[in-house]
């Protein structure tokens, strides 16, 4: 009987120990690990905020240098960038002085949720920059098309057969027009995105990327047309025989 009681208490005490663990480990360890967690989260938060500040400053320079973006859009984005820089700087200061783990974690989370610098804002700026470059290239190609058209008219006046080159010029103009449509569509669908647009913004960003691809292919085709027309004009000028 005594053996049974002893065995019962042994099993009972072992079970309590397994469930609750040593008392000393329960009181000392969490305090130390909480301080370590606070330090780790602050360090990581500072790194993440600094990366975003660096990216936003570069984005500001990109927007300022955009040629085709409207002045109103430039102003909107510049203001938004400066606001994000100010808000992230303030958030960094708050995080650095946080002492409560739960508050710190909530603040650290807002680095992502309140700004979406990498999820929305930078893709938005990159797409607008790409659309801006497309606009400049399309304008340049339009100017070249006008010059080539003038040269073809001159050659036609001299009795040369320029019909094949005129077909190429028509194709060139059509490709330029489509590229302009693509970059205008990219601007209109991207300009309105905000951090709150995430995660739905992902599909919009991908769609805009496809439009950039289509526009770039148009511009490359137009450039090839221009080169063929330029070579054709060169050949016609070399050949003094009336076509």
């Amino acid at each position, binding site marked *: 009987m005594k053996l049974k009681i002893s065995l019962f208490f042994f099993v009972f005490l072992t079970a309590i120990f397994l469930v609750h663990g040593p008392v000393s480990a329960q009181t000392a360890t969490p305090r130390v690990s909480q301080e370590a967690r606070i330090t780790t989260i602050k360090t990581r938060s500072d790194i993440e905020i600094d990366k975003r500040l660096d990216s936003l400053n570069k984005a500001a320079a990109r927007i300022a240098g955009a040629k085709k973006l409207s002045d109103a859009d430039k102003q909107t984005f510049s203001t938004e960038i400066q606001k994000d820089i100010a808000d992230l700087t303030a958030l960094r200061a708050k995080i650095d002085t946080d002492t409560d783990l739960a508050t710190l974690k909530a603040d650290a989370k807002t680095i992502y949720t309140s700004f979406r610098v990498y999820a929305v804002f930078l893709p938005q700026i990159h*797409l607008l920059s790409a659309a801006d*470059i497309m606009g400049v*290239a399309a304008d340049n190609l339009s100017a070249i098309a006008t010059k080539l058209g003038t040269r073809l008219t001159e050659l036609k006046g001299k009795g040369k057969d320029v019909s094949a080159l005129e077909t190429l010029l028509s194709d060139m103009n059509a490709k330029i027009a489509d590229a302009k449509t693509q970059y205008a569509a990219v601007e209109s669908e991207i300009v309105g995105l905000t951090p709150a647009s995430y995660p739905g913004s992902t599909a919009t960003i991908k769609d805009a990327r496809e439009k950039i691809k289509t526009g770039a292919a148009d511009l490359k085709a137009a450039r090839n047309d221009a080169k063929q027309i330029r070579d054709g004009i060169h050949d016609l000028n070399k050949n003094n025989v009336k076509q």
Partner: protein
Amino acid sequence: MLNNKIIALSLGVIVLAAGTYFYLNMNKAPRSSVTPSTQAVVKSGDNSDAQIDADLKAVDSNLNSLDSQSGNVDASINQTQTDPSSGF
């Protein structure tokens, strides 16, 4: 009760693995850069052969910039898919 201990230990391992994953993602390196652009613009009016050749070179420069910028777009879209939005 021992099962509870094992479950708690397993959860701890999962949380540690998730934490390590997010830490590595957050410290992944350099995100694509955004640099100011200076785009070549063609000269209007002059439609000589030499000028048209120069204009075509300006367009080539534009298209190279566009390719480069498209690379930045792709890089930033790829980052979107790894954004550790759930926090630390």
